[in-house]
């Protein structure tokens, strides 16, 4: 499963808002994820990919597209 598909699955599972459409252009706000949801999404991603997400690195992330790229980079760094 691609990172995008995994992220989409996790976001939908956590927010419990299947009616809200996931797209790379969407922000957490548009996906109706509140702060507790975001923490749970981060933990689920860390668990799934065995990565560590740094809070300060998230400042640059504007939408899901950025977030997917960030996670792909983290997965890539893991092998090094």
């Amino acid at each position, binding site marked *: 499963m691609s990172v995008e598909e995994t992220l989409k699955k996790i976001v939908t599972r*956590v*927010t*419990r808002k299947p009616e809200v459409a996931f797209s790379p252009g969407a922000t957490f706000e548009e996906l109706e994820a509140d702060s*507790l949801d975001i*923490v*749970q999404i981060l*933990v689920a991603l*860390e*668990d799934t990919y065995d990565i*560590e997400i740094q809070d300060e690195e998230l400042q640059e992330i504007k939408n899901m597209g950025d977030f997917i790229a960030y996670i792909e980079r983290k997965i890539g760094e893991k092998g090094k």
Partner: protein
Amino acid sequence: MGRTLTLPSIVVTGMGAITPLGLSVAEYWQGLVNGRSGSGPITLFDASAYPVSVAAEVKNFDPEKYMPLKRVDRTSRCIQFAIAAVKMAIESARLDMSQEKPEKVGVIIATSGMMSIIADEGEVLRKRGPMRIDPLSIAKTAPSMVTAQAALEIGAKGPNTSLNSACASGNDALGTALNHLRLGHADVIIAGGAEANVNPISIASTARIGALSRETDPAKASRPFDLNRDGFVFGEGAGILVLETLEHARERKAPILAELASAGWSFDAYSETAPDAETQAIAMHMVLQDAGVAPEEIDYINAHGTSTRLNDAAETRSIKMVFGDRAYKIPISSNKSMIGHLACAAGAAEAVAAVMTVREGIIPPTINYETPDPECDLDYVPNKARRQPVNVCLSNSFGMGGQNCSLIIRRFP
């Protein structure tokens, strides 16, 4: 000289119950009246290596029936029991929150929270480090969140407290709510207890101190006042009462189920685990005095009756201290023989039963009473419910640690 207060009457206008005998007040009451045991083999975790194999679990509970999925995700079983019973109670009280001043509706729930989650997360912490901990673990565990989530769900902005005085907590929550209402801090308080104690840490620890029954036949394990009792059976669930001033209940034309007449408290200051009959009697004297009820007026005692050797003998002694020879004439029974010991929620679940008793004129039995114990020689309503009018019911709850709290629930004319 203190001020003389004219205290308003406080009435019960609604009830909710999630119990090992069923998921409504009606099912719970039917189970009690029929002398049905809610105990069974432990299924909530693998207890094969534990010295105790029996518990009174809540069966077929589906939290999604009572709250949005999101709240299910963010809460534990204990909180979910509380929310379910609160919603049932306000529905039965026909309490329309949109017609109430939200700051005048409080919620007070007795609970120990859900410490088992901390034990599980401790395992995660040791094995996988701090970044793998469930970020919601404290929110799911903390006793404060039980009452907070329940009030959040219904939008109640009045006094909000989770209360813990061990196994006296359920009564303590109702007594504390009573006093808030008497003093005008709220018009309505939704009060009671919630507990989900059938988990490895609670069962292991309580078994190790020797308080739990080791009987392997579930239906026979809880046997209060019987000579061969060997400890209590852990139960789980929630009991919730909607309490309000009589004036407020009348204004909104609420159904009035009974009166919560008074509460009395004491603390043993004697032992961490062993009960003290003399101090239990102080709580009973206080509750009688506070209600202005003479000992002769008590028609029935809903006992703490845990099924431990020490409790049942001490409670029998304390009842004799308060009622003298009349103790032999008062029917006394233990709901714990059927629902097990709901710990912090016990008093509240038993208050629901006490309200039903004064309304219906039926006294639920103490089941599994087979062999009389010379130390427990009162009328425990053995094995079969008794049809008998009850105007005034005394309900006892005693905590491990020494907390005692008794309530008087009176039939409302």
